[in-house]
């Protein structure tokens, strides 16, 4: 079950795939199944740019299981340039590098090790822009 749960999210996690409403142009992330009464064609898949700004953040010092090795690490709300607000870890930065509103970009990193006889989970994090 664990493997399938992670595998199912690969488009979201690897490529930042969201959805655009074919009528209104509204963009949402992550992708969701159609709501009751909605046609599947109502939303189309799009790949988001990965560029955004830091909306808010908090530094984790007492980590949940599986993340102890990263402490201290920032978790942020990132406002993507297409609009959606995404929760993600920040990487390659110290707390002193961070302030609300700075430009950040998506990178793909190792998110979680689910055990020696299980898969390595990769996905998006954000970092202050390199260029």
């Amino acid at each position, binding site marked *: 079950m664990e493997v399938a749960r992670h595998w199912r999210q690969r488009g979201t996690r690897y*490529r930042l795939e969201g959805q655009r409403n074919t009528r209104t142009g509204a963009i949402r992330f992550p992708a969701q199944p159609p709501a009751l009464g909605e046609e599947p064609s109502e939303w189309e898949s799009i790949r988001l740019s990965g560029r955004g700004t830091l909306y808010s953040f908090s530094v984790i010092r007492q980590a949940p299981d599986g993340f102890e*090795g990263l402490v201290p690490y920032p978790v942020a709300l990132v406002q993507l340039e297409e609009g959606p607000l995404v929760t993600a870890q920040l990487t*390659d930065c110290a707390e002193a590098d961070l302030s609300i509103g700075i430009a950040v970009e998506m990178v*793909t*990193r*190792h998110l979680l090790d689910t055990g020696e006889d299980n898969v*390595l989970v990769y996905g998006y*994090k954000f970092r202050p822009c390199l260029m």
Partner: protein
Amino acid sequence: MMKPNRPVGLVGYGAYIPRYRIAAKEIARLWTDGQGGVPVSAKSVPGPDEDTITMAIEAARNALARAELDGERLGAVWVGSESHPYSVKPSGGIVAEAIGASPWVSSADFEFACKAGSEAFTAAMALVGSGMAEYAMAIGADTAQSRPSDALEYTASAGAGAMIIGPAEQALATIDATVSYVSDTPDFFRRADRPYPVHGNRFTGEPAYFHQITSAAQRLLDDLGKGPQDFTYAIFHQPNAKFPQTVAKRLGFTDAQIAPGMLSPQIGNTYSGAAMAGLCATLDVAQPGETIFVTTYGSGAGSDAYALTVTEQLLAARARAPLTSAYLQRQVFVDYAIYAKWMGKLVMG
């Protein structure tokens, strides 16, 4: 020498070097009380969320940005490394999926110690050169392992380089010819299920690095009817700072020719990434009409040599992704304790 039927070249390139460094003197502090010389000044250290796959993905995205290509245009995504995160499950499949190249793509992992990436590079030349694909990506990436206190620990580092091979008429640098030289030389190896590689003592150096590199490089020069003076730049595999300088001198290349691609003094030996990141750094400064000579090396052992000529297209492509220097400059030093924790060298009892 080998040349494809259809002329090929690089249409994109991208480097990746992690943000973290450990000073060689910090490693010497633990094991030699800081006495004696060190082979480099520092080496790059992968962050706790980085591995060969993540570094390959970022280098690949940089290469795609320079080529202005979508991943789905790639006919192949090949990843060369000696530190693939899985023993069985291809890094190439994950990288291909992450950069949007899947599912209609050829993908595989290559292994040939430090020249795994250049094996992929030669294969990509052939795939495009035969007309089987329009574009093919070859990546060299490593988070190299080293036993605590071993001489390797001073240099075994992390980094990646990605190259997109395409038709010569679209190239930012044409690849004019290549040579491969391979022999069974037991200079360095890691048995299956062993955590750290070992050196085959007397085979290190002369019969390995120097013999393979000079054989491949001299053969390519001879076959092209050229000499070291005909090339603006040269890149040789960089296990430390001294070896590439020595082999360059033996072949008749100058320090000035190898300077732009010499990354090992700052970041150590990035293994499969070394010659490829060195080529990236050289492309970052090269001008149209200039020529580049590259010779890789992999223990076991063998070398691939390449001759490239830079085109006008490089100037526009260069600015579309971070320069290698941007990765070099963001260095943050860690101490041995943090390094040991991140590299999984601590026994948690």
